[in-house]
């Protein structure tokens, strides 16, 4: 809770992301039904909920990989260019906004890593810096190697992804997402495809990112991790936010019946 005190003192502790009344349907099936969510700078928001509750879809709409059917999504401007002040919220769901420019400001890590198999690790990590931001190869590789060193994978820089373990691949994917220093990091069930003994190394990296001040929205099934890393836990059910609050509040003292049921089922899947 000290974190929130610091945020108030911090002059840039303005929202990075504001989701307002977002609706999304696939055909006739509603997936998101009026989502409201505000994420402050340096805040870690963890989305929990059953499969199909809309966690992944929400992350995809924020990254403009899915077009929303109603509502707005606002993202803080990275800089003062293109007619606004830095930090001011910009409606990224406006069709006049270039989605590539928005996506360049958001880092995404997927469940299945999605590393490019035809490129080695360092090329994977530096691709966006070189081809989107326009940094020189030398400079991009220096920065990329520094990141790989931080996660202890510098010696794998020239390896191809299929030579790495799942945990190593996912850590490379995280580094790829943060290599261009995005405003916001979206993590979509990044440990779901990993062997249990590899989950720890990936989650340790996420904790490091939090300590370094990243703003993160993540969907996860790892409740113990959500409790340790989250500033705020949001429980989704059938495309609606049922309850949100501090991890202590959600996990120890949930106010809503649905939340209690969900947590009971997660803790004891057999209901014994």
């Amino acid at each position: 809770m000290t974190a929130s005190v610091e945020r108030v003192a911090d002059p840039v502790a303005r929202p990075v992301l504001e989701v307002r009344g977002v609706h999304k349907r696939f055909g006739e099936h509603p997936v998101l039904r009026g989502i409201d969510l505000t994420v402050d700078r340096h805040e870690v928001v963890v989305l929990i909920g059953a499969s199909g509750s809309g966690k992944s879809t929400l992350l995809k709409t924020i990254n403009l990989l899915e077009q929303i059917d109603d509502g707005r999504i606002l993202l803080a401007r990275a800089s003062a260019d293109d007619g606004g002040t830095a930090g001011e919220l910009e409606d990224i769901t406006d069709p006049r906004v270039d989605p590539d420019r928005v996506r360049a400001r958001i880092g995404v890590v997927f469940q299945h890593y999605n590393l490019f198999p035809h490129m080695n690790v360092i090329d994977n990590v530096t691709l966006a810096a070189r081809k989107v931001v326009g940094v020189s190869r030398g400079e991009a590789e220096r920065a990329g190697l520094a990141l790989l060193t931080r996660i202890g994978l510098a010696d794998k820089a020239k390896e191809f992804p299929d030579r790495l373990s799942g945990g190593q691949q996912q850590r490379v994917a995280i580094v790829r997402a943060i290599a261009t220093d995005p405003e916001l990091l979206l993590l979509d069930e990044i440990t779901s495809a990993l062997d249990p003994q590899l989950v720890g190394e990936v989650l340790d990296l996420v904790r490091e990112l939090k300590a370094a001040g990243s703003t993160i929205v993540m969907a996860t099934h790892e409740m113990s991790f959500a409790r340790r890393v989250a500033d705020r836990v949001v429980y989704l059910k059938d495309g609606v936010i049922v309850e949100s609050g501090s991890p202590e509040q959600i996990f120890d003292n949930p106010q809503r019946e649905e939340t209690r049921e969900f947590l009971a089922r997660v803790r004891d899947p057999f209901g014994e």
Partner: protein
Amino acid sequence: MTSSLPGSAPFEPSAIELERRAFRRARKQRSILFSVLSTLVFAAVIAVVLVNSPGWSRVSETFFDVEVAVKSFPRVIEGLWLNVQVLFVSAIGVAILGTLLAVARTLKGPVFTPIRLLAAGYTDIFRGIPVLLVLYLVGFGIPGLELTGRMPAQFWGTIALILSYSAYVAEVLRAGIDAVHPSQRLAARSLGLSHGKTLRLVVMPQAVRKVTPALMNDFVSMQKDVGLISVLGAVDAVRAAQIEVASSYNFTPYVLAGVLFVLLSWPFIRLTDWLTARAQKREQVGGVV
């Protein structure tokens, strides 16, 4: 409980959403308008350049004479019917021989080495020889052996096309078979399916789906190469056009035959595009990128 949750009311788009939709619609209309305009301008430029070229009057007379086209139409279309028949038989033949060759090349184990080598040699040779040469060699060479009675030229033409195109199709299919992930084979064998049944029920259906565009491409390509059987003397659309050209001293029948060939292949090209688009839609649900 759910009645108190937002979003359970019937969906009613907000003003913001309506404005977004209007903007997207307007943008779409604008881009359609631009594409129509640019197409018209492009066509107009081509037409103006053509019509104003010094030899235009003579070319239009010898290549685009409506009267000649009408007069030669019955014979050319009759010839095209022969092309369609040859195409139909060839396509079936190619499907069978091509599949056999592809399967032969994927056989594992030392016992099958001769078959594998034979199939590899076959595809290497027949992909290397120009179709025209295959037609000459088969059409004039095999009858010389006098194994059969006199067969019409289109018979040998069909054989030659099958021999040639099977080699291409076999390679395409083999690429498809190789592209099916080994885990699929594992899963099928673990159910107790034999090698043959695995291939027939699990691997081939996925393989064909993966290479449908390439197969359709070969089919369209064969559709026009059917016209080459005219070199053996079969009176197909090309040959019929040739005869008409010789009798009228006008090249319009060639243009007519060309147009008819395009019309023949057009439905298949569209069908291919449609199939590919449908498969893509099914495999990548949602997603705007």
